[in-house]
């Protein structure tokens, strides 16, 4: 297995795709976080009106709103690890370069597993670039009073890393299923950029408080980071509530959380861990289907 992983790393490193994608990844998540960071007041104003915040008399201008700049840029930049994964197997199947790998691996499963591990690691590398450039942009754009604390920031980074790994595997799996890079990219990009976000907004609007949007792959993926961000703010608010000795109105907190997730770019998302599990299930299901499809596929 070690040999096959080494071989897969060499495949990646001997062509330009990895840095050809890492550069726009960096640029996009940096620029996006700068943009959202600069407009953070608009993003937070919707939430700042939530009754519970006024009720506890919290100084809303000091909540870590900048966290939304982070999550939104992280979520949008996820298209790059997804593309990277999508091309991982689809191009090899399409070009038939996979043939030689099948001829040198002990089994197809071994090769596909090595591929999955390699791409998971690359997904983490993308995740690192995304979270760091998003953090950089956020720090530059947002006022220091609304930046999250180190621990909260670390949570978001971790959620971003996991999301990037899972998006890469999801792309890899869809590519393995379709077996052609163009078709895979068109399908995934249209879904992740257009159909997914619109459907989630519509579903969230229709099913008041329903979890359907959060069950979609894109919704779950965004929920991983978005709900973490929501959680961070809710926790801050809860602490403030406890300190103020005010009666906690749970439904008001829930309403706040829903509003926060929308602001974070994950409308209708479930709690961060539930989102994570759902997204893990999607990634593994699609990746598993891709594996199965290639277990017996005729390479002609």
């Amino acid at each position, binding site marked *: 297995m070690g040999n096959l992983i080494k071989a897969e790393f060499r*495949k990646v490193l001997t062509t330009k795709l990895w840095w050809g994608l890492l550069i726009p990844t960096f640029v996009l998540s940096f620029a996006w976080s700068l943009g959202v960071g600069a407009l953070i007041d608009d993003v937070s104003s919707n939430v700042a009106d939530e009754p519970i915040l006024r009720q506890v008399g919290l100084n809303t201008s000091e909540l870590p709103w900048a966290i939304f700049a982070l999550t939104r840029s992280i979520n949008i930049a996820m298209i790059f690890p997804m593309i990277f994964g999508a091309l991982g197997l689809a191009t090899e199947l399409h070009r*038939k370069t996979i043939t030689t790998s099948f*001829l*040198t691996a002990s089994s*197809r499963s071994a090769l596909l597993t090595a591929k999955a591990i390699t791409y998971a690691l690359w997904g983490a590398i993308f995740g690192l670039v995304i979270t760091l450039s998003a953090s950089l942009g956020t720090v530059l754009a947002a006022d220091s009073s609304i930046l999250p604390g180190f621990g909260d920031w670390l949570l978001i980074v971790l959620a971003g890393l996991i999301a990037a790994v899972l998006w890469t595997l999801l792309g890899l799996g869809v590519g393995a299923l379709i077996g052609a890079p163009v078709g895979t990219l068109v399908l995934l990009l249209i879904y992740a950029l257009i159909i997914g976000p619109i459907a989630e907004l519509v579903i969230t609007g229709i099913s008041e408080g329903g979890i359907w949007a959060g069950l979609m792959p894109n919704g779950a993926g965004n929920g991983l980071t978005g709900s973490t961000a929501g959680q961070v703010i809710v926790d801050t608010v809860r602490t403030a509530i406890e300190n103020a000795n005010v009666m906690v109105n749970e439904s008001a907190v829930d309403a706040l959380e829903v509003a926060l997730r929308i602001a974070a770019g994950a409308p209708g998302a479930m709690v961060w861990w539930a989102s994570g599990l759902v997204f893990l299930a999607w990634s593994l299901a699609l990746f598993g289907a891709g594996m199965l499809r290639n277990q017996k596929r005729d390479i002609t």
Partner: protein
Amino acid sequence: MHDSSGRITVQNLSKTFGQIPAVQNLSFTVEPGSVTGFLGPNGAGKTTTLRMLLGLVQPTAGGTTINGRPFNQLTNPGRVVGAVLEAQSFHPKRTARNHLRVYTAAMGLPDRRADEVLGLVGLAEAAHRAAGGFSMGMKQRLALATALLGDPQVLVLDEPTNGLDPEGIAWLRTFLRSFASGGRTVLISSHLLAEVEQTIDQVVIISRGQTMYYGQLDDLRKSQQTRIIVQPADAGALVTALQEGGITGIEPTPDGKVAVTGSSVQQIGDIAAKASIALYGVQEEKADLEQLFFRLTSGQYVGQLPGVPGQQPATPGQQPGMPPQAPGMPPQAMPPQGMPPQGMPPQAPGTPPQGYPPQQQPPAGPPQPYQQGPPPPGYQQGPPPPGYDQQQPGHGQHGGWGGQA
């Protein structure tokens, strides 16, 4: 390092793509220490068979083994089998050396092995060039280098001479011979017998997915009957004399000679002497293997199209020299292209179809009809095909034969 024999077996192998039967009940064995040619016209099923052998295509029925195991059960297959496949591709932007280093890593080989094989196939100077910029022959050499990377015991090559220059072909021949003489196994496909004739010991000839011949190349050579061309003072008299002498395979040629098969120079000489016919020249001719190959691979149509009126190759009305054409004949069933017009059964005396293959043939079903099946009318013993004399002026008749003996 190699724990096993290097023997390849193919057992009752069949593959159907949707409706298309690509390979039907194929069986053969390739012994270590030999080079086996795997021959058949386009679409015969060679590539499909080799891909099944390499675990890339799932057989519909039957199976294959290398070293007694299916390919998928080999633990480090790259070190047992090296393969060059049709349309094997490389990442266009990856250099030759980097391409090879991917697979040295996969097989757990030292990286210098990549440079060794590049040198071996003559690509050392192109090591740092991207494979996308390679010429066809260079790509073929790189594919060969990849196959040799693991120093395998078995080589499976699908039309490896594609795109190779004469020097490359000559090198490959020598290489494969020495590879096999060291006790290793080579299976090489081609649609040109002439191309591999000097390289191979054993041959498997398939057509439309079925075995037409399987055995030693030498046996195939021996099975050819010699044709004797006699130039007598009086052709008509000699024909009569020979017929009286009980000889059947007689054909007068357009230029006043007589071609005799199934006889010997002595026998003909004796008969001529007895009949007092002067002989001005006696010449022995052997059919070349390519002719034999065409006959084997096109023989299928005789079997495939029975009962189609007027379509049998030797139907008297048919123009000799015309390939037997049948409407709706599958495209892969078309040897005529490269086939000298006179190579058709009617003009090919000699080789009785039942002469060679059956004894080597696995006792299996389908292929046999082709070998022994309805003896093609006029194939050998019939009277000289009508129109032969008028239609085939001199040169045509000697096309596949003359000069070869």
